[in-house]
């Protein structure tokens, strides 16, 4: 039960929770948060896998995995920003006729 297994399981759970939230949550804002949680789950699986390189050197893990996750985080914030902008505009455009869930 070393660190890698615990965090891998945590990553899988976050992925599943995020997937559920992204599909089932009613308020649109919450779906965007759920998509972020889903992304965090994937990143955790990646970094947990990179934690203990076989050759046991200074265990800074596998830099390529860290670079991938860094790229993923920036992509996630960009998608979230676009999503939030659309949610706000939809709220303003559509609240004229009926009250959509925020």
């Amino acid at each position, binding site marked *: 039960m070393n660190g890698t297994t615990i965090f891998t399981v945590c990553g899988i759970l976050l992925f599943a929770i995020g997937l559920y939230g992204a599909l089932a949550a009613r308020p649109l804002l919450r779906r965007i948060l759920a998509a972020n949680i889903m992304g*965090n789950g994937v990143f955790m699986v990646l970094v947990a896998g990179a*934690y203990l390189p076989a050759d046991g050197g200074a265990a800074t893990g596998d830099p390529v995995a860290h670079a991938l996750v860094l790229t993923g985080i920036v992509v996630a914030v960009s998608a979230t920003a676009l999503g939030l902008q659309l949610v706000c505009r939809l709220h303003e455009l559509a609240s004229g006729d009926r009250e959509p869930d925020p």
Partner: protein
Amino acid sequence: MPGASRTNEPGATRVLTVIDLLLSGTLVAVALLTLGARDLFASVVLFISNGLLLALAWARLGAPDVAMAEAAIGAGITGALVLAALRRMQAFRGHGGASPPASGRDDSGSR
């Protein structure tokens, strides 16, 4: 560096495992709470704390770069964006929309 702990006696690794379990459990719990929170503002705050906990997890997993990026971008900037979006929707409902007065509570979010 957390990696170095592997060399000393098992007592330390047992403590480390407890910390890992604690951190992972809290992360999953906060994620569940974020989706289940009654109020949108509460789920946003929980989401930001989830981001910070995640930064802690990256540091524990020996990824300082990712930890800094997560704290600065994942929790910081994303949190600011989501709070701004929430503020904008409540501000618009406040004197734009015809619905009940601007209450922080999100009346329509059942789950």
